[in-house]
């Protein structure tokens, strides 16, 4: 069954909310067990080059990433906020192909907020008994540079 536009909108809004809240367990749960999650520079994506800045194959790597962000990595505290717009449903084959724009702001403590990343999601969404889940999520960021650190998932 093809999800409605409202279902997809809710999916992306939940996704953004979980990341903004720092609820990385809920973030992991938005993916299927075999999901692939990539954060890729547009430079590489456009040229068909395989290097990805973040690459998780399967739930295990997503779990590891959530865990390491929470308990093993050192980084300056920050507030991030994800703005997702222009959710488009491109077709349903093995899952639903969706694209959406993202804008991520970050505010380090005692600093003004700044734009951290902008780009496009190219996702595959599938219906599961638990609801819609991402079977694949590719976050392609514009520009080639990451400012200092990519701490949180996109």
């Amino acid at each position, binding site marked *: 069954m093809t999800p409605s536009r409202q279902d997809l909108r809710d999916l992306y809004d939940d996704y953004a909310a979980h990341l903004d809240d720092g609820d990385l367990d809920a973030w992991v749960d938005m993916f299927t067990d075999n999901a692939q999650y990539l954060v890729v520079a547009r*430079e*590489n994506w456009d040229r068909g080059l395989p*290097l990805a800045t973040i690459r998780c*194959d399967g739930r*295990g790597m997503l*779990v590891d990433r959530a*865990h390491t962000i929470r308990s093993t990595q050192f980084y300056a505290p920050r507030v991030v906020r994800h703005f997702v717009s222009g959710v488009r449903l491109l077709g349903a084959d093995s899952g639903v192909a969706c694209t959406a724009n993202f804008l991520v702001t970050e505010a380090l403590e005692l600093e003004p907020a700044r734009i951290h990343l902008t780009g496009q999601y190219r996702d595959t969404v599938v219906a599961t008994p638990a609801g819609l889940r991402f079977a694949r999520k590719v976050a392609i960021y514009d520009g080639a540079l990451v400012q200092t650190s990519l701490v949180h998932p996109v």
Partner: protein
Amino acid sequence: MRPWPDGGTSRVPYWVYTDPDVYRREQERIFQGPTWNYVALAAEVPEPGDFTRTTVGEVPVVVTRDRRGELNAVVNRCAHRGLQFCVAPSGHTTTFTCPYHQWSYDLTGRLLGVPFKKGVNGHGGMPADFVNADHGLARLRVAERHGVVFASFDADPPLFEEYLGATNLGWFDRVFDGRTLRVLGYQRQRVPANWKLMFENIKDPYHASLLHVFLVTFGLFRADSPSATQMDPTGQHSVLVASRGEQRANAATAEMASFRADLRLAGPELLDVVREFPGAASSSRPAPAPSSSTGPSSATPMTTTPWWSGACVRPTSWDRPGWCRSTTARSCGWLSAASPPPTTPPPSWRWAAATRTTRSTW
């Protein structure tokens, strides 16, 4: 210049990282001096007409392969008004034309054409003695070794091999042994810090043993690993040589707050050892943690394969066409540059990533 404080090199003052005058002189004497600077992999410009952009110090540079198949490095500033004529990060062309006044150059930097060179209706134009050959792009000297391209602003730089010296050349050849390289992608990062801090950070195993939980816990790099910083006799070059240890607690880890004997990966294939070139290493990793794991869990001690025998930590999934992890060639090269240089360059697994402005994401 400020006086150096007492204490020799054991007392490095902070101003070496912040003084604008020091920075300016570094640009002149180091980056524009008799040094060889990495600018590209030959695999980035495989065909005549290919080009790629980079910088040497702060100077924008274009590396090209000309019609004869030779490598060139030219300053990306039009000889006329200094505009950066090449705006694409890479590509293929027969000539470069500056968009400002359409001066055009071939791929060696030779000036081909100047619009209105003789003026318009008898007015303006270049002087009668203007010769195109005198007004080409500034060129750098180029050296290539095993597919890695270096450039120098010096008019008469030392031979690259002599410059690097025997010890470091051995380490260089261990990673770049002549096998065909393939570009996997680019990872760029802008770090708001003085350039020297990045180099020094990589030669600072002290912090790695304390800050980087991942490296420490999995024995990828830590204070009790066999390691050394080797400096060549000239003091110009150094290499951090390290061998992988194990995930095992010992006297050294007792002082490492970041050591987590209980940390297990839910997706352990991240640590799969992949043979990159022939050697004695074989791939092994611990049994996968339960898929329900959401954090540290108990498991048997990790066994790891030493990579100094010729392996590099790289997921097996890299062997599948299409995907790879976010490690860069620079860091991977550093990781794998850990065994004595091989006596004969073996044929090998073929890959490399080109990278600029990188920092590992551990």
